[in-house]
């Protein structure tokens, strides 16, 4: 039987608050832990820049772009619990907005502003019907929006290139030209680092906590005064803006966009990536992004491209059932166990 007695004695005087050190929001990191994280981060950034050949640099750039999208889905699904099958749709909206404006000669800053504006609108449009929904209904609404978007793409050929897709001019921001592998890498990495910092910061805000409570118990959220609708909308908008920017970067780096890049399966793969990596962790989002970009290459090189879908489906089901915190969660508990038994 687990102990059910309370840790405070009945006759205790009110504790002297000053005597007990006030806890910070998160457990303090040891200097060694901080050092490990900083060194690891610098290495992760510098190694590709210094050692990777061109092809792998382009892949790394795409990983960074996709990481922004998976971070957005982490916020929407991992943190707020809204299972959206429209994340690739949001990417597509950003990618095509960037393409259309870019092909009209608009500067990257204008493209970015337009991408953000379009993403906000699309995100709001998808969010509104979902506000009172959960589970399958919510997923189906997002799926329906995705299908509609794909239909629009195919039926607006003159503007978007239709089902054939469209060549996108390489993104050029200042001295950074995406057709140069190293610069493509930087163009993808810098926004991705910003997005990562934003999501890490979110963890220390009341907004971030609201999202968690909305996910875990809408009833408790109501009882605590959390504005549930506002929280869900903000979550959707964050997801769509992140994905829109990710799509824009992807188009400018990859050089080509087409409807299959942003269809239902692309959304499902984004979900797979997020769940495998760990839906609640920033590191998990990066792991997921690496999975999306690198694994298809690996399987194609092995001659069994179909394995990507197969492994993805199997992993999604297995990880969801057996390791709800994803690979990162597994790693963390393994490290925790080893530390405890050491």
């Amino acid at each position, binding site marked *: 039987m687990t102990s059910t007695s309370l840790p405070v004695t009945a006759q205790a005087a009110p504790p002297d608050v000053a005597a007990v050190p006030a806890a910070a929001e998160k457990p303090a990191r040891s200097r060694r832990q901080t050092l490990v994280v900083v060194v690891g981060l610098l290495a992760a950034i510098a190694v590709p820049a210094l050692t990777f050949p061109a092809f792998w640099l382009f892949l790394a750039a795409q990983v960074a772009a996709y990481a922004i999208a998976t971070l957005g889905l982490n916020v929407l699904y991992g943190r707020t619990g809204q*299972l959206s099958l429209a994340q690739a749709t949001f990417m597509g909206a950003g990618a095509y907005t960037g393409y259309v404006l870019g092909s009209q000669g608009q500067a990257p800053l204008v493209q970015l502003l337009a991408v953000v504006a379009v993403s906000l609108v699309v995100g709001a449009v998808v969010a509104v*019907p979902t506000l009172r929904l959960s*589970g399958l209904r919510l997923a189906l*609404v997002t799926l*329906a929006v995705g299908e509609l978007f794909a239909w629009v793409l195919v039926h607006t050929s003159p503007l978007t290139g239709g089902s054939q897709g469209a060549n996108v001019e390489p993104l050029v921001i200042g001295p950074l030209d995406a057709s140069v592998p190293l610069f493509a890498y930087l163009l993808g990495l810098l926004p991705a680092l910003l997005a990562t910092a934003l999501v890490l910061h979110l963890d220390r805000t009341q907004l971030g906590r609201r999202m968690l409570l909305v996910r875990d118990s809408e009833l408790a959220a109501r009882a605590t005064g959390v504005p549930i609708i506002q929280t869900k909308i903000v979550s959707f908008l964050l997801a769509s803006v992140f994905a829109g920017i990710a799509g824009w970067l992807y188009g400018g780096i990859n050089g080509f966009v087409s409807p299959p890049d942003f269809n239902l399966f692309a959304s499902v793969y984004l979900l*797979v990536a997020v769940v495998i990596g760990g839906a609640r962790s920033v590191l998990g989002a990066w792991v997921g992004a690496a999975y999306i970009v690198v694994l298809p290459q690996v399987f194609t090189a092995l001659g069994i491209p179909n394995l*990507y*879908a197969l492994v*993805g*489906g199997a992993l999604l089901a297995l990880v969801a059932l057996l390791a709800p915190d994803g690979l990162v969660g597994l790693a963390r508990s393994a490290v925790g166990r080893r530390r405890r038994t050491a």
Partner: protein
Amino acid sequence: MDGLTQVLAGGVTQGCLYALMLLGVLVVFQVSKVMSFAYGQVGMVAALTAWAVTTVGVPVALALVIGAAAAVLLNGAIDVVAIRRIPTDRVGLDLVVTLGLFLLIAAVMQQLVDSNSHSFPALGADTQTTVLGARISVNDAAVVALAVVVVTGAWLVLSRTSLGTNLRACAEDADIAASTGIDVRALRTGTWAVAGLLAAVVAVAVASRVAVDAFYMTSVLVKVFIAGMIGGLDRFWPPLLAAVGLGVYESLAVATFGADAGVPAVFLLIIVVLSVVPKRFVLDTSEARA
């Protein structure tokens, strides 16, 4: 032949297919409280398996039986291997797990068969006949007849037999049902198996009309879910009628706006319906009860 009647006949046929598939969704949902996103793929397995064995010389009738058997086994296996392991307190996990199975099954079939789309034997879809003054295909007539028979049969079983009573008891409260001696697990898996058969039938019927590939049943499944949500997943007749209505709606939209209008008509409807129709059932554990 009056154009409108033709359109309606086509719509009713399509709607009957939706209704048959929805029947499988309904019994599975009511007995195990799960909506399987992989259900369409189970049907696809039946059709693709049947197609594949016909290419090696197996006669069509036998191929259909083999395909149906595969679907029955697969859906039952999904319940035993995956669904049973989902803890009841994890809300929404069934969707994620069945999404994974959806991908997995499609990928496996693509590996075992191939990734191309194929045409299925017509099964009477190309033979015209006249019923009540309307010219429809034999396949269409068979579908409608089958739907009526199966749905009526299901209703009779559910309301008039002891099996039906046991099923409804399981649907109501599995724990209480188990305590009265009902083998809940066997009933559940049996329900999934029968649903597999229904998926097989529908998938084969759809296959006789469209090209078959690893994902062709996805849009059918989505529409079936919608019809279920319109009518109420805890009911019987309203959702089935909604399914037929959806088929008619789709047919009318296409007739009015052209073949391309099918997708936006249905998916716009989905968005509107899901936003507006109130939740009729509580999926999550009881909250704030007296």
